[in-house]
């Protein structure tokens, strides 16, 4: 944690100057602190190579080689009673180290313990599917492929799950622009009307604060409605709000407040 600095006089120092602030890390402790985790880790180490292991917030984190992922999770499920895969996904560390981090969050109902298996793969590498062990991994792995482009081996239905099947790019990567690349911005126009319609329809308006006060082809002010496309740069006439035309509607009698009767006696 950063040392506390009094912030009472904010006027004196109006700029945020702490440019080299590093996000606080969650404290790690040694696995030997927890007897259950320690014995589990010993058993994992007899069969697989463990790169690192520690306890964070009462949960053990085990970092393994990516090639061992199916074996480790099969071992955890069948031998060590971690019988539930509650969450799995990827984290984009491409900018920092050129790798994806894949994590599997496991839960043991009998031991009442949670364990996280982590491994790292390079951008072009693929990873073994664990769908045969946990059915819940089916959609999670598809989402991983959809959002990050992590290719999964031996998956029964390796297709995009959220984005359209003809989508290009992987939206949850840090390099993907929030408002979409060129493909995304023209996606619906290209698909429905064809690329030649781009010029006619025009680019998307990505400025949420843009208001064209004098645009009468698309918008009308309530109470100041004018014909479609009229020039209102010199001001527009006031038109009273009305639910029907003033002269009345054909075959429909207009409600007249003068002629109406208020019924006060409900047992009438």
């Amino acid at each position, binding site marked *: 944690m950063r040392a506390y600095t009094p912030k009472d006089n904010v006027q004196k120092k109006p700029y945020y100057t702490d440019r080299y602030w590093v996000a606080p890390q969650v404290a790690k402790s040694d696995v030997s602190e927890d007897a259950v985790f320690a014995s589990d880790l010993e058993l994992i180490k007899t069969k697989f190579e463990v790169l690192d292991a520690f306890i964070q917030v009462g949960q053990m984190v085990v970092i393994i080689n990516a090639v061992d992922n199916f074996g480790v999770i099969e071992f955890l499920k069948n031998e060590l009673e971690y019988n539930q895969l509650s969450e799995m996904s990827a984290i984009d560390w491409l900018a920092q180290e050129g790798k994806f981090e894949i994590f599997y969050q496991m839960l043991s109902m009998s031991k009442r313990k949670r364990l996280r298996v982590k491994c790292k793969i390079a951008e072009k590498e693929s990873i073994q599917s664990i769908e045969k062990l946990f059915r819940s991994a089916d959609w999670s792995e598809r989402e991983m492929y959809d959002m990050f482009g992590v290719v999964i081996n031996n998956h029964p239905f390796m297709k995009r799950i959220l*984005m*359209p099947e003809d989508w290009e790019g992987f*939206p949850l990567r840090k390099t*993907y*622009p*929030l*408002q*979409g*690349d060129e493909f*995304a*911005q023209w*996606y*619906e*126009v290209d*698909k*429905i*009307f064809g690329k030649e*319609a781009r010029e*006619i*329809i025009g680019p*998307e*308006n*990505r400025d*949420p604060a843009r208001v064209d006060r004098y645009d009468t082809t*698309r*918008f009308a002010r309530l109470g100041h409605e004018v014909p479609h496309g009229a020039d209102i740069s010199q001001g527009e006439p006031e038109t009273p709000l009305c*639910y*029907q*035309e003033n002269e009345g*509607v*054909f*075959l*429909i009698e207009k409600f007249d407040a003068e002629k109406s009767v208020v019924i006060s006696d409900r047992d009438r």
Partner: protein
Amino acid sequence: MAQHQVNYLKDGGLPVALTTIDKVVNWGRSNSLWALTYGLACCGIEMMASGASRYDFDRFGTIFRASPRQAELMVVAGTLTKKHAEFIRRLYDQMTEPKWVISMGSCANTGGMFNTYATVQGVDRVIPVDLYLPGCAPRPETLQYAVLLLQQKIRRESASRAQKPKRLM
């Protein structure tokens, strides 16, 4: 028996109204706007509330239909994602002429707060819109007012015009 007979000599004579074809046709069209059930997001809840008993769209002749072939009004109620854009176009094409579109709520108008890669920035990029309804989400009264405004618009149109399909481009 006699009291049910029409008295042709009272109330201005024969029960005949003289008018134009335009007015009769537009009277029919504007008072039987059958809307396509098209709730895409939270605006759909307001649209359902407008159709239910408290606000009661049926009294304006607006009845929600599940098939685009029976509908002439599309209330785009909610966020249109890019994945769904081709389907809204297909449903719009399946509706029979004449047809009208109300874009309901900020998301349908401009993309609203979803200024992201996955949201169409306004349904008017895909289908032609007659009425933009502001709000997030618009209350049922607002949707009622929009339908009444659309009825006025329909009554102003010429019913005998050559039936040119509406085009976006």
